[in-house]
């Protein structure tokens, strides 16, 4: 069966609860000069229609790699070694390159980290949007520029007709971010992966951009993965939160619960380090230590072990225990 046919069956079929994105036990390795980097190990997450899931973790925890693996955009050095990725029931890891290219940008889209670098520096932004529109059909070459201008207007770019001719270097960071959103949403995808859509923006612009994304997502019933290192931002906009640390998902739970009763020591530390109402900035506690070196051959089963103040002797015994109950998961032998 072709990818498109499977997709239609999944959309209208009786399995209304088939997640739009279902990632199970995904492992990714990078072969580098200095050794094998075990960037992801048994990462699982699911996103349903209309749902927004936040993926949170400090820099280097594997958030972007997860997104790239799902989109099949890993560097040549990266390889999926285990796991299963399904988009509306379609096995993305087994699909042909052509099928994947058809899905990308049309059914599943991504807003890339570092918006300016994700744009072609020497092509007018309107042209770049038109390229995507033309690629996925629906508009002719003549209609594409007008439709691109319309999309620019939708993401709140003033004077879109003139801005369509601008190059990325002529636009502010916030403008580039909006262009990235317009590109990702151009074909009204069923799944949006937004990788740090607001880093580097001032607080006001940040709020405007996030409202824009979530409004569009709600209107269209789009499933959204919001990748951020900012737990505060994720709590504000997401239904569920997945906490990542050093290539592991350490905890995942509905937003309210994870805040009320964090179960993984890392989640608790992350919350303690996040500014929130009623807590003075001086009351924030930073997380001690650094991420372990993912190239090490003797990585402990729990990659938080060296930083954890609750470590027990049995924490060093493999395998890493993942406890699941009532829609929550925690990867810890001695949860809070």
């Amino acid at each position, binding site marked *: 069966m072709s990818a498109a046919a499977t997709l239609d069956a999944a959309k209208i079929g009786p399995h209304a609860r088939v997640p739009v994105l279902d990632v199970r036990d995904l492992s990714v390795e990078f072969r580098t000069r200095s050794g094998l980097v075990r960037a992801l190990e048994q990462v699982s997450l699911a996103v349903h229609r209309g749902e927004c899931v936040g993926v949170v973790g400090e820099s280097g925890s594997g958030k972007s790699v997860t997104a*790239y693996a799902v*989109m099949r*955009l890993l*560097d040549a050095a990266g390889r999926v070694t285990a796991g299963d990725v399904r988009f509306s029931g379609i096995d993305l890891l087994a699909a042909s390159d052509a099928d994947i*290219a*058809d*899905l*990308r*940008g*049309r059914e599943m*889209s*991504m807003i*890339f980290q*570092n918006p300016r*670098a*994700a*744009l*072609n*520096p*020497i*092509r007018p932004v309107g042209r770049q949007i038109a*390229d*995507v529109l033309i*690629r*996925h059909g629906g508009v002719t070459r003549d209609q594409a520029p007008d439709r691109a201008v319309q999309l620019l207007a939708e993401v709140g770019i003033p004077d879109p007709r003139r801005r369509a001719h601008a*190059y990325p*270097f*002529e636009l502010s960071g916030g403008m580039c971010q909006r262009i*990235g959103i317009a*590109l*990702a949403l*151009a074909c009204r995808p069923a799944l949006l992966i937004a990788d740090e859509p607001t880093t580097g923006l001032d607080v006001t612009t940040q709020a405007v951009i996030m409202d824009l994304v979530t409004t569009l997502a709600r209107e269209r019933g789009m499933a959204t993965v919001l990748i951020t290192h900012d737990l505060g931002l994720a709590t504000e906009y997401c239904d569920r939160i997945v906490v990542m640390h050093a290539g592991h998902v350490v905890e995942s739970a509905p937003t309210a619960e994870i805040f009320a009763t964090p179960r993984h020591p890392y989640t608790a530390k992350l919350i303690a380090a996040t500014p929130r109402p009623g807590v003075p900035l001086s009351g924030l506690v930073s997380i001690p230590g650094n991420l372990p070196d993912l190239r090490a051959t003797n990585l402990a089963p729990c990659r938080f072990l060296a930083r954890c103040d609750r470590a027990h002797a049995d924490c060093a015994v493999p395998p890493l225990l993942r406890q699941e109950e009532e829609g929550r998961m925690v990867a810890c032998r001695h949860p809070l």
Partner: protein
Amino acid sequence: MLGVTVRRLAAALPTLVGVVIVTFLLTRALPGDPAAYFAGPAATQQAIAEIRAKLGLDQPLPVQFLDYVQDLLRGDLGLSITTGQPVLHELTTRLPASAELTLLGLLFAGSVGITLGVLAALKQNSWLDNLCRVVATLGVSLPTFFTGLLLIYVFYYLLGWAPAPLGRLDAFASPPPHVTGFYLIDSLLAGDLETFRSALAQIVLPAITLGIFAVAPIARITRGSMLAVMGSDFIRAARGHGLSGRTVVVAYALRNALLPVVTTLGMVFSFLLGANVLVEKVFAWPGIGSYAVEALIASDYAPVQGFVMTMGVLYVLLNLMIDLLYQVIDPRVRLEA
């Protein structure tokens, strides 16, 4: 664009002044006495002195230089002592032959080099990539005259595919009516396919000889810059938006990768201008390079000066063209200008 052109030309003026001074000093420093050469072997000391006075060679250097500059400003490059013809006239009649050869050599080097570089980058570590590396090494290490002789030996002497390396046309063809001075273009304009074929057959080997040694740097730079671009965020993003492989490689990656290639084209072209002299000698090409060599051997100042001047002007014009081309490709430069 026009403003930029004028500004760049103005910035090139000091270079041109330098070229004028250097050519003047260089030819005065060369061994050989043109007055003695001109007077002939049987001339008396007095006759030589008279000729020296007539040529102005007995004046102090600064005076000679002022004369030289005044002549230049009038468009007078002097007379060739050996042929008795005005140098300007001889250079302009011979320039199209050199220009046609050099441009075709550059076209060959550019198309082969860029293609090889792109393929090598897309199929990293494949046999194509290795071929690219071998060509790059060979092209740089073989001297131009050797490549020329080798090609003549193989394609003319052994295989008989190429005509005798004796100039721009074979003995039975006559030049097409002069429009651009480029035989390939003029013969087509005149609708004369026979002459076109003859001109093409004659120019292929020298153009390849000239270009082959520029293939290497172009291919290497294209490969490197293509690899860098293919690994950049915006290419990942372009693929992430579903753009087809061809759009990604050609419209997104290649255009960006060409920026550093265009910059090196200027350097490559000035190499080609220099290599021209040897190639013209090997293939009996009636261009300005072989003209300059003959004049140099005969201690004939004026043509050598004229040749170096022409090269200087060509170099300045070429760099201007590359600047403009760069601005067409890269909008970021346009803004700065």
